[in-house]
């Protein structure tokens, strides 16, 4: 079953399930941004912490993408 297509280092959804997963990942990233923004003291503080969590979300998303993608 392939629900993603790899383009460079990114996994692009080609199936509804993939789009649902991408939406969840984006929603989680936005939620993390709001949480960090509430606790941080400056813009750089927000961005550094948010970027770190964004990488982790991206890593988990890419792991799913790796497992359910096809090579062209």
């Amino acid at each position, binding site marked *: 079953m392939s629900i993603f297509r*790899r383009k*460079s*280092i*990114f*996994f692009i959804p080609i199936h509804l399930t993939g789009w649902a997963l991408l939406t969840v990942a984006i929603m989680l990233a936005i939620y993390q941004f709001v949480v960090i923004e509430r606790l941080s003291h400056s813009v750089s503080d927000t961005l*550094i912490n948010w*970027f*770190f969590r964004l*990488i*982790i979300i*991206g*890593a988990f998303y*890419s*792991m799913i*993408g*790796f497992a359910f*993608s096809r*090579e062209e």
Partner: protein
Amino acid sequence: MNQTEDFEKKLLGIIKPEPKVEHSRFLKLPILNAQKSASLGVWLIAAPLFILACICMKILFTHQGSVWISFFETLAKLDDSGWGWFYGPMIILVFPVIAFVLNLLSIIRFQYNREQKDLMVTVRLKWGNIIILLLSTLILAAFMSYIFTENIHTN
């Protein structure tokens, strides 16, 4: 007419060439796709590399401490924070291990010769995968050294 018969006889006399299938014995297939493994490897080592980059920037701008000591301090802080005991080792140990294994499996190929009983291992020179392998080894070595130095107590 005679010429046609001769030609037909010649055609019938031709030996059908048999394709040599010897090369198929040496067909070596990689276990995983190299480019796909490299793309996941980039994501997996990005988080620990980001921590290292932050530490380097801190030292560069404050001129205090060393990379090694700051790295250890960061890991110790991560251990003490709320969910740090879970996502600290996951980012610095589990992610690089996965990246290492995936990229290793994508560049090495095995070939077993049953007659001579020897196993040949060949490495494909895919530089992207090799760089990820080296970086994940570096991260793992740093984390292992932290584990050993942190848990050795002298009485």
